[in-house]
């Protein structure tokens, strides 16, 4: 293998890292907020039906088709081209981010739902008895317990989203995969280039695995009250 080629390739792929990280973090934040909203909606019957169909639609179809639908499909509607949203929806960045957020929300809302179901009724009742408001119960009892319960599944979702960001390269965005893809058509040295990109993704996802294992151990009941994990 040609080491100078590998190191120069490594450097040019790393130039796509900021965009990959940007899409990754923002889609997790946006998707997380939307997932919380979807779960709050589930308290009413109509809301539950809406949330259920949303999850069904976004989990039953490939992310790639969702990205294309937003990027190419929405532009076909005149009222969208005339609306204030058009300056955003005409950019591949915003379309890609939107698709990632919507997709992540569907998966995260199911993970959160599992976590919420595991919250003991007694804990919520205790909060109510001691006069906590609904928001306070959500913030101080329900969410902390649900999030701890959902942590292992959520760490998988965090890694899935890192991998999902690679798909925005199909709508011309130059993230790490986009740069690798362009370099392949220039040089035709696919194996070396793809290995460089794969190593970077792998390193990030291993960091996440480590961090989530640490967080899980740290937040386990038998660790409470200890100063060091």
């Amino acid at each position: 293998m040609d080491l100078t080629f590998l190191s120069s390739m490594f450097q040019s792929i790393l130039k796509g890292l900021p965009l990959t990280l940007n899409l990754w973090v923002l889609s997790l934040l946006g998707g997380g907020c939307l997932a919380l909203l979807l779960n709050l909606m589930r308290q009413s019957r109509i809301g539950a039906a809406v949330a259920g169909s949303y999850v069904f639609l976004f989990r039953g179809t490939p992310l790639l088709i969702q990205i294309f639908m937003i990027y190419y499909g929405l532009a076909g509607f005149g009222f969208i081209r005339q609306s204030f949203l058009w300056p955003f929806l005409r950019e591949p960045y915003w379309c890609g981010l939107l698709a990632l957020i919507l997709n992540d929300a569907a998966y995260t809302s199911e993970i959160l739902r599992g976590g919420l179901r595991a919250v003991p009724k007694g804990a919520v009742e205790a909060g109510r008895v001691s006069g906590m408001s609904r928001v306070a119960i959500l913030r101080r009892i329900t969410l902390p317990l649900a999030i701890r319960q959902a942590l292992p599944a959520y760490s998988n979702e965090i890694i899935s989203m890192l991998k999902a960001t690679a798909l925005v390269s199909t709508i011309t965005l130059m993230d790490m995969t986009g740069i690798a893809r362009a370099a392949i058509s220039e040089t035709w040295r696919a194996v070396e280039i793809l290995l460089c990109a794969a190593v970077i993704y792998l390193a990030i996802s291993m960091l996440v695995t480590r961090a989530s294992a640490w967080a899980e151990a740290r937040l386990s009941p038998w660790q409470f009250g200890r100063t060091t994990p």
Partner: protein
Amino acid sequence: MGDIGLLGFGPDGWGLVLFRAGLMTLAVSVAAFLCGLMLGTLVAWGRVAGNGPVRALAEGYTVVLRGVPDILVIYLFYFGGRQVVAAIGTALGFPGPFDISGFVAGMLAIGLISGAGQSEVLRGAYQAVPKGTIEAGRVVGMGRLTLFRRVIAPQAMTTALPGMGNQWQSVIKESALVSVTGLVETMRQVSVAAGTTQEHFLFYAAGAVIYLIITTLSDQLFRLAEKRSLRGHHGAGF
């Protein structure tokens, strides 16, 4: 919204073409799932019963495939496969140009990705088999193969079914990525149709519906299989 007649089965309709593309999605998904099943079984076996190096190899495989984007793996098989085939072809003195089939590249790539997930499901299912039943089988003098066929496999399969159902759903959705190799499955076909007719939203929506039909129907099938596999179990409350 464009002319819905474009989706029909008439001479101007794309119905038949889309139907065929849907079958291609099914075909490549089934082939990839079976590849993944073979690989996943081997890897799960390696992780449960292998010696040090075998176990490390099997674990390394799952860690790598868990952390690398699926589309990179598909590119690797498609472009890399072409590189390898060209190198072998040139060495053997065949005239170029060389190409490999998108179906084979996609099947192998998604099989490799799915194998990692399936191995985890199968390993979990094996570990959930009560040790007493295995010991009982050994005591009555069953050989390793008989033990697997009559004691381990029937119990593990029941536990593994829901997880395998999830893996199958992932394979269907990952199969859309094979469109980057030019294989004419659903994703590729709706892109072509959308480009030709300029009815982007209509055709991507039609593509989404095709995927929803496949995922929903197979979900029902897996549920049915799950119910059947639970027949005769104590405390299976349905």
